[in-house]
């Protein structure tokens, strides 16, 4: 027999979906800013393997010479992004939802199992809880990263008034790199998140929209 089961509370669904356009605007405006001094690359010595970002990438997205525009959007929408994240943290803390989300001592081991299963290296099914260990680690990390973006961003934006923070983060240039790496982390998270949502199917995605999941339950014995 199939049955509806409440899964995601309304507040979490709204905050999750509101975060999507806000984070998009922050990443987009951040890219417009980064373009003006796009110096980061991965490589060995003088040999650069990947440059962030190649010109074709900037050309494709049309981000060149839009620093002022990027800064304005970034410094206005940062408030909405931060407030949305803060409301989420407060809600999960007060409602008790954090119990499903925060990793425990088994999460790491479980996350490895889930990963092996998802890569088709193990047949052991992930536990049928709301969030398995991999999800707990991912969804908690992303909140810690959000806090990191606010802290590193503040250290760049107000590097004199919050100079102690800039100093603790290793200085102005270091804070800028950290801020960039966190942004890259969101993109990475987003890619895996989308892949997992597609893999999990409609019933799972629908539960983030409606709040309800259709579950099979065994018929009670007559």
């Amino acid at each position, binding site marked *: 027999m199939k049955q*509806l089961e409440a899964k995601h509370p309304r507040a979490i669904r709204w905050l999750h*979906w509101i975060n999507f356009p806000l984070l998009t605007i922050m990443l987009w405006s951040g890219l417009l800013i*980064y373009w003006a001094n796009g*110096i980061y690359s991965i490589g060995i010595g003088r040999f650069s393997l990947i440059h962030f970002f190649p010109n074709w990438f900037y050309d494709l997205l049309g981000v060149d010479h839009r620093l002022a*525009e990027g800064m*304005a959007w970034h410094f206005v929408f940062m408030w909405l992004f931060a407030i949305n994240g803060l409301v989420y943290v407060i809600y999960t803390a007060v409602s008790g939802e954090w119990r499903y989300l925060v990793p425990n001592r088994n999460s790491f081991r479980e996350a490895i199992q889930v990963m092996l299963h998802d890569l088709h290296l193990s047949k052991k099914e992930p536990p049928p809880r709301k969030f398995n260990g991999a999800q707990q680690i991912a969804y908690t990390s992303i909140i810690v990263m959000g806090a990191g973006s606010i802290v590193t961003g503040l250290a760049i934006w107000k590097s004199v008034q919050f100079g102690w923070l800039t100093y603790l983060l290793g*200085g*102005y240039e270091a804070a800028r790199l950290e801020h960039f790496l966190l942004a890259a982390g969101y993109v990475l998270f987003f890619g895996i998140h989308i892949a997992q949502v597609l893999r999990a199917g409609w019933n799972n995605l*629908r539960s983030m929209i*409606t709040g309800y999941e259709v579950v099979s339950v065994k018929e009670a014995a007559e």
Partner: protein
Amino acid sequence: MTDQEISRITRRSLLTGGIAALAGTAAWKWLRSRPADGNLPWPLRVGLRINEEFSNDYSSDTRLARTFPASAIQESRENGDLGLDDDVDPNWKLNIGDLSLSLADIKALPKVEMITQLKCIEGWSVVVKWGGARFRDFVAKYAPNEAASNAYVALATPDREYYVGLDKKSAMHPQTLLAYEMNGAPLTAEHGAPLRLAIPLKYGIKNLKQIGTIAFSNTRPPDYWAERGYDWYAGF
């Protein structure tokens, strides 16, 4: 029964979500299409002004920009030659109110040296050693009344091609210098000889080179880059 139920809930949720998405898109389009104020849609300009209020209220003279040891000084970098001549006018004077001052008048003030980070709004930074007079000392000697009765400071190059506006609080900060030396040597033409502003509280765009005039006002002075879409305050 369950299938009908979930279909009904899904329809309702997608409708709500669709309306929310449309509202968001409409808000975004509205924002982007607002008349420009200083080359920005005006609501964004309002947002920057609110940030400025917060910054102004929170900032304090006791919080100093980080200073560095001499070993941290980096190779200087030139960016921006607006309002600069290749050759420095030998008859250069600094005009403030009715006064016309020479470099010797500035050098007569107590000399301050500091090694701070010049941060370009583009995102790079350079550690520079500055030598010059504190703006607050300069004002105390040459324009005490104007400074006391006004809220803003305006600086411009001699040809007025480049100009910046400063809030008085930032201008009077102890690390705001009228600099005539850079890395131990007199300023070169491309770094703003004979006298420039060194204000580590602000992005490089506010560190005006080759100061021609200084004026005080109670209305916000025009600012070259603020007119082109940048934040007027542009401070750390």
